[in-house]
Structure formats: structure tokens, C-alpha cells
């Protein structure tokens, strides 16, 4: 059973490679620079074959891979179907669904430029994210522990928070000196709102008995805030940060329409206007991989910080 499971990806990548090489391309599709997709399938075939043989010898090492094997097959099958629907038969509209070879081609030949765009985006995203997260945690704690702040600031949060970042664009453009600072502000705003709300509600939902225990142990109010309220609210804070992070990705694309010179969101929009959809897909792939990695990093960090939690919520 295990052997079959880890053999299937070998079979699927072989089939994918055969489809890519043996079936003739439709003449409707512009020719790609090179058969990149076949290279990819060939590489996958080699890797899966190696993993299969390693698995035969010592199944211990490939346990994780065996578990993921059916999923690999699914991905290969999806790519093959897409390959057939696009370049092999041109069933899908040729303009909007370029061949996978061309998408892969863009990723390889345009890598330097896309990389530069990515760096610009990351700079913007990280600046905005850090400011928004810091401000959100600070506001959340203030609202959570201070009745005065709760009275004055919380209504403001409730009113300002749900406004979508696009709606701020006209105001932000006239109030910030540079496009970069305006864009960073929009991203910070998107992170700030959920972080604030969840930090303060996290503090609000802490069992009173923890505060009582701290008081009988002689802790001052300040000490109690930082050593009881904040750590107890951290699971909520991370949910807020997670929501803020997804919101920041959406805002990034909006923010880069304000007149950025580079940026992955800007790149996608620009290529869309030029009707070169292969580049659009390449940009989307880079963007989704980046978001995936950033979220994964956030989760890893959270698991480290919240090691004390029993049965941590898995996303």
C-alpha cells in the first residue's frame, strides 16, 4: 500500500511528461521560447523516482512524502488537464489562458525584473505591517486595560476600522508627502484594525481569576498588564495579526496603483493592461507563493510563542 502510494507520483509525472511531449501543440498558440513545462515534468519525474527508491530501502525517511504523494498526483493531474485545455487543444480562449510553457518562460526570463518588483513590494508590505501591528497591539492594550481609552478610542476604532482601504486613497494622497509613505500608511491601517480589535477583545475575555491571583501575589497594575494581560491575550493577538496580514496583501495591490514605480501588484496590473496574460499569471504565482511563505512564517512564529497552549488552533 505504502509502496503504491509513493509510486503513483512517478506514474503521474511520467504521464504528464508524455502528454506534454507526444501530443501536438495547437497552431493557435504562439510558440514558447522553450518547452519549459516538459523540463519541469522531467525534473519532477526524476525527483519522485528517487524518492520512490529511497522509500523502498528505508520507508522511515519518506514518511512525510508518502503522506503528501496523493496530493502531488492531484497537482500533476491538474497541470496536465490545464496543459491539454490550453496549448494542446486551445479549448480555453487563447488570449486569456496562455500555455503553461509561456507562463514558466516568463518566470525564468523575466525573473530579475519580477524579483525587483517583489523586493519593492516586500519593503512596502513589511514597513506597513510592522507599523500597523505595533500600533494595533498598542491601541488594543490601551483599550483593553484603560476605561478612559475604551470610552474615547474604541468608538473611533469601530467607525474607522471597517472602511475599506481603497476609500482612503483620495485623503491619503493629499496628506502624505510621498507615494511610498501613503501606500505604507494604507497597509498599516489594514493591519491595525483587526489587530486592535482582537487584542482588546482578547484582554477583555481573560478570566478574572488570573488578575486576582496576580493581585494576591503582590503584582502592581503595570506588572499585571505586561505579565498577565498581554500573554493571556496573545492567542487573540495572533488571530488579529493573521487577519491583518491577509488584509495587507489585498491593500498592497490597491496601494501600488497609487503611482508606484515597481511592485508585484503594480506589475500584474501593468501586464494586464498590456494584455500579456502569461506575465499576469507569472506575477500571480510569485505573489501567492510569497503570501504563502509569509503566512507560514507567521504561523511558525506563533507556534513558538504560544508553545504553552494546549491544542493550539491549527490554520
Amino acid at each position, binding site marked *: 500500500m505504502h509502496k503504491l502510494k509513493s509510486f503513483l507520483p512517478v506514474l503521474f509525472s511520467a504521464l504528464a511528461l508524455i502528454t506534454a511531449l507526444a501530443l501536438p501543440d495547437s497552431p493557435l498558440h504562439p510558440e514558447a521560447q522553450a518547452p519549459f513545462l516538459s523540463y519541469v515534468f522531467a525534473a519532477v519525474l526524476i525527483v519522485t523516482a528517487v524518492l520512490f527508491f529511497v522509500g523502498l530501502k528505508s520507508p522511515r525517511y519518506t514518511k512525510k512524502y508518502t503522506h503528501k504523494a496523493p496530493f502531488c498526483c492531484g497537482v500533476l493531474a491538474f497541470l496536465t488537464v490545464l496543459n491539454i485545455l490550453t496549448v494542446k487543444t486551445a479549448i480555453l480562449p487563447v488570449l486569456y489562458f496562455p500555455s503553461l510553457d509561456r507562463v514558466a518562460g516568463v518566470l525564468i526570463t523575466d525573473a530579475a525584473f519580477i524579483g525587483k518588483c517583489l523586493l519593492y513590494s516586500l519593503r512596502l508590505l513589511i514597513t506597513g505591517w510592522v507599523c500597523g501591528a505595533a500600533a494595533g497591539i498598542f491601541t488594543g492594550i490601551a483599550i483593553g486595560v484603560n476605561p478612559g481609552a475604551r470610552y474615547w478610542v474604541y468608538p473611533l476604532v469601530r467607525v474607522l476600522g471597517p472602511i475599506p482601504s481603497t476609500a482612503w486613497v483620495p485623503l491619503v494622497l493629499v496628506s502624505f508627502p510621498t507615494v511610498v509613505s501613503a501606500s505604507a500608511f494604507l497597509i498599516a491601517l489594514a493591519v491595525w484594525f483587526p489587530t486592535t480589535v482582537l487584542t482588546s477583545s482578547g484582554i477583555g475575555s481573560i*478570566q478574572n*481569576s488570573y488578575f486576582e*491571583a*496576580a493581585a494576591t*501575589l*503582590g*503584582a502592581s497594575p503595570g506588572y499585571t498588564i505586561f505579565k498577565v494581560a498581554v500573554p493571556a491575550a*496573545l492567542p487573540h493577538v495572533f488571530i488579529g495579526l493573521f487577519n491583518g496580514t491577509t488584509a495587507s496583501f489585498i491593500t498592497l495591490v490597491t496601494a501600488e496603483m497609487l503611482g508606484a514605480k515597481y511592485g508585484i501588484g503594480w506589475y500584474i496590473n501593468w501586464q494586464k493592461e498590456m494584455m500579456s496574460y502569461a506575465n499576469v499569471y507569472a506575477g500571480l504565482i510569485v505573489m501567492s507563493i510569497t503570501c504563502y511563505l509569509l503566512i507560514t512564517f507567521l504561523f511558525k512564529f506563533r507556534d513558538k510563542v504560544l*508553545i*504553552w497552549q494546549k491544542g493550539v488552533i491549527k490554520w
Partner: protein
Amino acid sequence: MVGGIEISHVNKEFTNPQGETVRALHDVSLSIAPGDFISLIGPSGCGKSTLLRLISGLISPDSGSVKLDGGDITSPGSDRGFMFQEHTLFPWLNIYDNIAFGLRARKIFRGSEKLVDEFISLVGLKGFEKYYPHQLSGGMCQRASLARALVGHPKVLLLDEPLGALDAFTRMNMQDEILRIRAEQNMTMIMVTHDVDEAIYLSDRIVVMTPRPGKIISVVDVGLSHPRARGGEDFLAYHAKILRLLNYTISKPEPDYYL
């Protein structure tokens, strides 16, 4: 000697979620000498925890006064250690940091690291310092809470069913430890328990309470010298006496049935 408590004519009412008034304590007076060991015993809801919370300063009386060494108790403080009925170890701190919490909060941790280790071994948790509360059994958590309340050398130690989650054997060991600590540190101890034998084994005086409204019906002086023989004749006589008092509180008909 410090740690004397004077409770006089204390009343305390609560409003429950249905809006009804609950008389948790009604005209309660009790005088506790420094170094005394007092047990509070009585059916559920008779105001035992409420009395401890008044002494700790977490709540204040509606009328009457609660004094520690002559001064009014107005707020919680580290001179009155509290081991809560429910488990209140901080889940984000490991056992060591939980026990050291009070010392760190009062900025007296430097130089008393030894003390923390001492109390960890005293409650039998050596080797579990790095564990988080959710990784320990209920009984181990209770012992850690006890150490956390003790390590700051309070004048008065308030114990709300401290040994409830322990097996009979560990429980008896812990009772001896509590007696030893008390003798060593001269603390006043006030303990809520449902175990009559435990109350007799440990206490100088046993306060028997009754619910609705919560009040003290009797204070029994335990005139036995330590160490007390759990199965001894005198011991059993006290046992019968306390049970009689408790029985009386339970079987006494509600006043509403008369008239």
C-alpha cells in the same frame, strides 16, 4: 507576632444574574490569633470562599470590618497569600516561573532563586520546573499553586480546598508538610475544606458554617496536641461532633416551611 485577623459583624450580599439578592454572609464575627490554624467547614454555598476573599481584600464587606493586625484590609496584598479553589496557575508560564511570579512582581527575585527551588522540592515537583500547567495532573497543579502562595512568606495564608484534587496518600503527606511549614514560618493559616478528618488533623479551631444566609453556627476548639493520631479516640470524638454540627445544618428545615 503578626497575622492576627479580626472580623466583626460582616455582611456581604451578591446580586445573581437573575437579579435576586444572595446573602452570602450574615453578621459574621471571628477573631483569629496570630499563628492560628483555622478550618472553615460547611455545605456548598455557605460563604466560605467569600470569607476568604474578604480577608484577601479582593472584595470588601457591605458592612462590618475586616482587620489585619489592627489595620483595615482594603486591597489584596502579598502579606496574605491565597491559594484559590479553582486552578489559577498562569498557563503561559512554566511551573518554575509560576512559582517565582510573586517574587519577580515584587522585585525580590534576585537572590531568592534558592527559595523557589526549595519550595519546588517541598511540594514534590522537582524535575517538573520546565513543564507548563496543561502538562501536569490536577494534583500537581494544586501543589504548584500551594508553592506559589507560600514562597512569598505571607503573614496569612488563605487556602481554598487546597488538597481537594490529591489522592489520599499524597494528601496526608501534604497535610504534614503544611503543619511543618506553619511551625517553621509562624503563619496564620485559614483553610476551607470538605474533609472533616483533615480539619481535625490540622486545625486549632474549626469554624462550622451554614448557608442561606451564610453564617457561623459554631467554633470548635480542637484541644489535641500534635502529632495527632488520625484514628485516636479523641480524634473520633471530634469527628462525631463536627458531623453532628454539619448534619444539623443540613437537616434543619428551611424557616419558610413554618408559620
